[in-house]
């Protein structure tokens, strides 16, 4: 491994993030292995990180659109449940969020429920906060917000400065919610319900609500199980699609360079045919010794078993060279590999063998494809 002095030469390019991947990896490894004490490289790195971070200061400052701040606020608001989980259940409100909501300008701290700083509250007030949040989320759009808040929540409760709930008298022109009207209208009926006669009757019907609740709960469980299965299926499908996507992207990357080899003057094409292990399989090898590159195209080759790979070999006289180790998938048809500098003999031969996942030093006995120059 190169020493510290050698790596110090790379610091400038490292902080500008313009090192080639190999050098960058080498620096990362070196930095992670070094202790902090007396490490000149870390000090040097820190100094250059500061000076490169100074570069943007000389730019002509451009202001972002004020809407960006609102956009961030909305994104944070949508993340509130996730953050709440991280922080536990310490919920309470710092100040009158409702007043803020009714203002025309939303800000990060007003839109984002600041559940995080507040004092401990009781479970009931947490529930009230949830109701409040629902209303708040509906009511981000000005006037509509006031109507919603007035109907559902503002009266008779409000949130105090310290996040506590208190009663507040409604104004004279306030139209109480329908639920309250019904409540008032049903007061005489309620009185009758408290009579002795009713209580006797009630006992006979006492078991019915429990049955209904049980039926309801059973229904909920079924719905939950049904949707859980659906969600699991979709998750599996997403994983599968992502794998397909990764394979296709990889394939696209290989194919993008494929035409280059077709222009090579010494392009040689080898046909590989299937053995008894894969009678339907066939393959073509496109090789250019001047470009030191080759492509393998596979068709009708089943993916290797778990913990196994396929390995392509070149037999040049007595010389045996491993060219590439591959895990085939149905999405990938073409594989690119490099060819070492050799002088090819006339008896050049290629094999595709089944090997352990770590690859082998020499070809195994299970040969899937083989071919030579015809």
């Amino acid at each position, binding site marked *: 491994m190169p020493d510290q002095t050698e790596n110090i030469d790379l610091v400038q390019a490292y902080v500008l993030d313009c090192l080639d991947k190999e050098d960058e990896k080498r620096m990362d490894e070196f930095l992670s292995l070094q202790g902090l004490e007396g490490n000149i490289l870390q000090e040097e790195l820190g100094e250059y990180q500061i000076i490169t971070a100074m570069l*943007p200061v*000389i730019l002509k400052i451009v202001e972002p659109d004020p809407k960006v701040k609102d956009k*961030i606020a909305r994104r944070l608001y949508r993340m509130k449940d996730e953050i709440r989980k991280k922080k536990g259940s310490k919920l309470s409100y710092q100040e009158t969020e409702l007043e803020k909501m009714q203002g025309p300008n939303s800000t990060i701290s007003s839109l984002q429920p600041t559940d995080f700083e507040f004092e401990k509250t009781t479970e009931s007030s947490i529930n009230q906060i949830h109701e409040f949040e629902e209303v708040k989320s509906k009511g981000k759009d000005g006037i509509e917000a006031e109507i919603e808040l007035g109907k559902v929540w503002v009266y008779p409760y409000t949130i105090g400065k310290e996040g506590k709930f208190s009663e507040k008298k409604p104004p004279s022109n306030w139209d109480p919610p329908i639920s309250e009207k019904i409540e008032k209208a049903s007061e005489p009926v309620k009185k009758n319900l408290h009579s002795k006669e009713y209580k006797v009757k009630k006992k006979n019907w006492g078991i019915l609500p429990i049955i209904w609740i049980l039926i309801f709960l059973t229904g909920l469980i079924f719905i939950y199980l049904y949707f859980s299965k659906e969600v699991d299926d979709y998750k599996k499908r997403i994983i599968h699609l992502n794998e397909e996507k990764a394979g296709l992207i990889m394939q696209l*990357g290989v194919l993008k360079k494929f035409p280059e080899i077709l222009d090579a003057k010494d392009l040689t094409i080898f046909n590989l045919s299937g053995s008894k292990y894969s009678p339907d399989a066939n393959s073509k090898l496109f090789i250019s010794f001047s470009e030191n590159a080759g492509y393998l195209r596979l068709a009708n080759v089943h993916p290797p078993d778990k913990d196994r790979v396929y390995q392509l070999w070149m037999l040049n006289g007595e010389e045996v060279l491993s060219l590439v180790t591959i895990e085939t998938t149905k999405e990938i048809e073409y594989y690119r590999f490099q060819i070492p500098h050799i002088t090819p003999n006339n008896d050049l031969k290629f094999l595709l063998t089944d090997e352990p996942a770590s690859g082998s030093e020499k070809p195994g006995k299970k040969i899937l494809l083989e071919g030579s120059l015809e």
Partner: protein
Amino acid sequence: MDSSASDIEIMQRVAKYDSKALEILYDRYSQLLYTLIKKIVEEEKAAEDILTDLFVKIWEIAGQIDFHSNNVYAWLINFARNKAIAQVKYKRNPIETSEMEFGNSIPKLSPKIKPMNLYDVFSMKDNIVSALNKLTEAQQYVIHLAYYEGLSEKEISKKLNIPLPTVKSKIKVALSNFKAHLNLGDS
């Protein structure tokens, strides 16, 4: 939370999910970060999206970063640059830009980096301009290509049609001279 709090105090509050602290951080840094991002990606809409993502990401990960020892200024600038450069690289070559590069936008600062805040840096603005002007045009240009265009040494070599070792040497000398002209030790 006081808006005059230091960068480190603000980030420590953000790490505890204090939304007011995040708002102060936004008010303090959004202009510079947006300027840097826009310089790199050029398009206004893309720059706004990256700035939004950046602050959302800060909110998500601040709790995992040690802001007792980190230089908040350099961390934010690097974070914004990394995100913008990842976008540019992806646009330039979507196939060869892996998801890893997108995921690796979180800056890796030296644990020995010295603290510095926005006001310190802005107070040095004239000094920075002067130090940059003392570099040759070629040195300024390689810094520009690496820092704002996200080109690697090999790509710079190809673009300028000069040998790779020359590019390596130019980058090394350019930043070393910039550092020497800044004379940070005395400031």
